[in-house]
């Protein structure tokens, strides 16, 4: 079975290659430099918040990628693992923007935006091999959610089958 930690980072890398999505998630850091706020969460207690708090304190805009479990079973002749990741979205402040980027836009960019993981513009994230040993993902999903302050946010789910048993 693959170590999903590396795959979490690979998903972040792939998402960052979607140009318009990365632009929508770009903000200035404390030094005034632009930074793409698409980050991985690895459950490193002591180095990171607990997941619930990490989602709660997500700045706007930002995305957070976290592995949330693996399902074992005999899915077909070559698949015995399906790994699942949660993709948490927090859209940016749309006040005063002529062309705001809302959750619908972010999801469309995620599903349809061209990735460039091989260096040139490529197929969308649904149709690439995100990491060695993985098949292309199952059709992804997204659902509305409310945070602890009842503010809208969205969470997508990527389920990615593993090829064989690595």
């Amino acid at each position, binding site marked *: 079975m693959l170590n999903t930690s590396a795959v979490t980072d690979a998903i972040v890398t792939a998402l960052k290659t979607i140009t318009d999505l990365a632009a929508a998630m770009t*903000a200035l850091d404390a030094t005034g430099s632009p930074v793409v706020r698409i980050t991985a969460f690895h459950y490193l207690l002591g180095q990171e*918040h*607990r997941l*619930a*708090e990490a989602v*709660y*304190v*997500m*700045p*706007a805009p930002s995305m957070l990628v976290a592995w949330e479990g693996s399902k074992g079973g005999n899915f077909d002749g070559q698949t015995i693992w399906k790994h699942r990741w949660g993709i948490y979205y*927090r859209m*940016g*402040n*749309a*006040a*005063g923007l002529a062309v705001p980027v809302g959750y619908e836009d972010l999801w469309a960019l995620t599903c349809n935006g061209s990735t460039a993981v091989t260096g040139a513009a490529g197929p969308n994230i649904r149709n690439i091999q995100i990491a060695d040993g993985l098949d292309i993902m199952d059709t992804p999903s997204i659902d509305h959610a409310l*945070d*602890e*302050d*009842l*503010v809208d946010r969205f969470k997508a789910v990527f389920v990615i089958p593993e090829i064989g048993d690595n």
Partner: protein
Amino acid sequence: MSAFGALSGMLNAAVLAAFGIPVTFTPQDGSGAQQITGIIQKPAMGEDSLPGSSLGAAVVRLFVQFTAIAPAPRHGDAITINGVVYTVADLDVDTQGGAVLKLRVS
């Protein structure tokens, strides 16, 4: 205004005078930053570190006398607390002129 409304306004003014802190309100209409007074309320979730600055939390609920602020705060306005800039992500206005602004670090 009803007697209850007037009393509520007096109560809000009294608690803001006693427990309020100065914050900088920057409306998005370009009318300029102004100082207002608010009370930081118990958060929905405690944070185990203070991102943004040594004094800032990422998410803040701020009670204000909504009807005393012009222009009225709305989604997307900026509020600066202890040097940390927050965006008004949501606001819950009560019937007596007060409001809780839900602020998220931007």
